[in-house]
């Protein structure tokens, strides 16, 4: 039984197992990237689709099989790393197993070797006639540190998997919400309120290429019952951009997507009217009359999301997105006599300039309340752990190839023909670096370095 268990563990910690596991993970990962997304309608037979979904093969990376493989990989990595630690600490410098006669030999004065090792600042240990000289000893731990780093990342991922969540909220311009929806369909209360004051897609000039997605948010901490009495609501504004998420109480909010929700009832046109250099803001619904100045009234009677003007003055719509939103302004006198019927384009300010004829200038800003912002909401206490893993791997990876750990075992002996001579065994790592300790030693004994 014991032997079987030992065999099992030694297989689990073997490089062979590591290779098998990596190969299977690799094959599944390739398959996952090549197989298009599937749903129930993909399969003609219900049984097949049941099997596929039961195994989680519709999304390989979250399937039980894939995650079990990662767990096995982690297990293998832990055991391999432990083996490496044991090897580095105990076996690497264990001289009892070395049969020096199998290794290199050279005739050289013992004093010369020892003084060389001292000059080159090797750490020297002498047991009887065997010298163990090592240099850059930290180098033997860097590989262990890299492997530990990978394990730390996996640990961070596990923490995120257990304690974190990832969800979405779509909030219409002007309204607010406080519950995120997870991909599983569950609802998660956030504990604070997100109000979207305004959402804009900005475009590069004269193109339909977006330059920014911006949500103007107000975050309000929901006061508890106790707080409610003191009326102590915490509230702040945040301009949310892509690539600059908002962090609040351990929850991260990202600008993720956007969309349209057309409701004529709540939608408002925002614009400014300037008369004699005095500007006034308006919020007006579709078809609603508003007073521009004495004896002049206006009405918005049409809207186009992306109006373009050609050279001959013809209008065309270039996109469904609000690239250059425009309104049709109809202005009339108190008596109902129409005086202006004109398209105002938000990006061509001149289109609303009626200063010469009627003494006012109107600047269209946007149609408010028809776009929603898609926020992705995330809580992941494991991220910091993952980043720690990243840092450890980065540093240790660089150090691994800069530090040339070398250990030289030298058996001082004598030969009747040549006098003083040594047997030697060099263990070195295959690294970069100009000053390689092993090379200095090879130079001393006048031997070309054999690449290992």
């Amino acid at each position: 039984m014991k032997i079987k268990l030992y065999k099992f563990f030694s297989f689990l910690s073997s490089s062979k197992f590591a290779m098998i596991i990596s190969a299977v993970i690799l094959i599944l990962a390739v398959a996952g990237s090549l197989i298009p997304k599937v749903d129930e309608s993909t399969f003609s037979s219900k049984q097949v689709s049941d099997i596929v979904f039961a195994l989680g093969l519709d999304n390989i990376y979250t399937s039980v099989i894939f995650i079990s493989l990662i767990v096995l990989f982690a297990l293998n990595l832990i055991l391999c790393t432990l083996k490496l630690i044991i090897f580095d600490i105990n076996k690497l410098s264990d001289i009892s197993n070395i049969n020096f006669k199998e290794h290199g030999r050279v005739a050289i004065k013992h004093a010369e070797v020892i003084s060389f090792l001292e000059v080159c600042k090797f750490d020297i240990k002498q047991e009887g006639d065997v010298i163990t000289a090592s240099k850059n000893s930290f180098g033997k731990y860097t590989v262990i540190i890299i492997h530990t780093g990978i394990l730390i990342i996996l640990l961070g991922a596990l923490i995120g998997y257990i304690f974190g969540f990832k969800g979405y909220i779509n909030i219409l311009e002007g309204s607010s919400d406080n519950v995120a929806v997870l991909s599983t369909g569950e609802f998660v209360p956030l504990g604070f309120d997100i109000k979207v004051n305004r959402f804009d897609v900005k475009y590069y000039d004269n193109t339909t290429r977006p330059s920014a997605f911006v949500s103007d948010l107000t975050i309000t901490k929901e006061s508890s019952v106790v707080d409610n009495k003191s009326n102590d609501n915490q509230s702040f504004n945040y301009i949310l951009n892509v690539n600059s998420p908002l962090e609040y109480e351990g929850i991260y909010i990202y600008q993720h997507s956007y969309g349209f929700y057309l409701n004529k009832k709540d939608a408002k046109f925002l614009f400014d009217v300037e008369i004699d250099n005095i500007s006034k803001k308006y919020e007006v619904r579709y078809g609603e009359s508003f007073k521009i100045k004495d004896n002049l009234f206006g009405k918005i009677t049409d809207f186009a999301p992306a109006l373009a003007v050609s050279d001959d003055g013809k209008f065309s719509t270039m996109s469904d997105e609000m690239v250059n939103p425009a309104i049709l302004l109809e202005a009339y006198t108190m008596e109902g006599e129409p005086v202006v019927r004109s398209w105002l384009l938000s990006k061509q300010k001149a289109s609303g300039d009626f200063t010469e004829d009627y003494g006012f200038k109107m600047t269209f800003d946007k149609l408010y309340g028809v776009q929603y912002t898609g926020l992705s909401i995330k809580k992941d206490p494991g991220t910091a752990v993952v980043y720690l893993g990243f840092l450890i791997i980065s540093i240790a990876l660089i150090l691994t190839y800069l530090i040339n750990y070398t250990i030289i075992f030298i058996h001082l002996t004598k030969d009747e023909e040549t006098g003083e001579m040594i047997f030697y065994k060099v263990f070195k790592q295959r690294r970069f670096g100009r000053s390689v300790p092993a090379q200095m030693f090879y130079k001393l004994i006048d031997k070309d370095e054999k690449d290992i």
Partner: protein
Amino acid sequence: MNDQIFLQLSGFIYLLAMVFYMSSAIFKSTKIGYFATTLSVIGVVLGLCAFVIRIVLLYKVSGSMLDSIPIANLYESLQFFALLLMVIYLVFEFATKIKVLGIFSTCVAGILIILISSINAPADVKPLIPVLQSNWLIAHVLLSFIAYVFFTLSAIAAIFYFILVSKGRQDPKYSLWVTTVSILVTLLLSLIIHLLFKQMIFISICIVLFIVIFTSLFYYGNNIPFYFSAFSKDINKLDRYIYNFTVLGFIIFTIGGLIFGAIWAENSWGRYWSWDPKETWAFITWLVYAFYLHARLYKRFDRSAVNAIAILGFIVTIFTFLGVNLLLSGLHSYGSN
């Protein structure tokens, strides 16, 4: 000013340099070698001109220097990759005085540039979409590309390794290098034919081309090691270069490609890892090279087996770099147009 003219000219000069690098090996002439190097340098200068012109054009539309580094779409990344490959190769050549790797470095750089026009990668100057407006763009893309270049150079060195160690036609190592070189040459010729006649190259023609090249190389390739005999005295040195290129690529790829990429993804998508096709293939690339590094430590793999992984790694790298963008869609799809 148009950057494309400079780019195409640089591609042409790289291919010319390739011919001279080859001649210098065949005729063992250092003079021709110097000429090849000079041509490469001219190619790089022209490539740099194209790169700088593009920066200026981008700056005009974006108004920000940081957002004007042309590495954001397929056209720009192919151009940048070719330039980076030649720059790093030339640094290597000046440092080591070894010229043979120039044959395939210029060949790959030339292929990349012809590829731009073959697949009609749009060359329009377009400013960055919001998700790419980040300082991580330069760090992540630049470092990933440097890593790809080192992987490419390691594969090129590996091809020479196999040319030198293979013994006769029965040796599988012989077939390995003949196949790899045939693929490269077929690719280059098909692209040139496509460029000259502006016609779709049919797969059947490619296959015929490949068979012709493969067969002729297979039968006459026996003499080729002779031309690179300068290396054959020190095959360990060549092996060492393969290793050094791979290690450099691996370190830079781990940090710049995977870790910086993950941090950026966390910052803009809210997930440091989401198994997007690009991420998946980057992971596969990383696994293959990690396997190379581990396999070198085990005695059960001989040097040839290990160096074959370097060539395999290059194929995976190319798929990660180009295949994913051209064939699969995902979060990294902005690289495909």
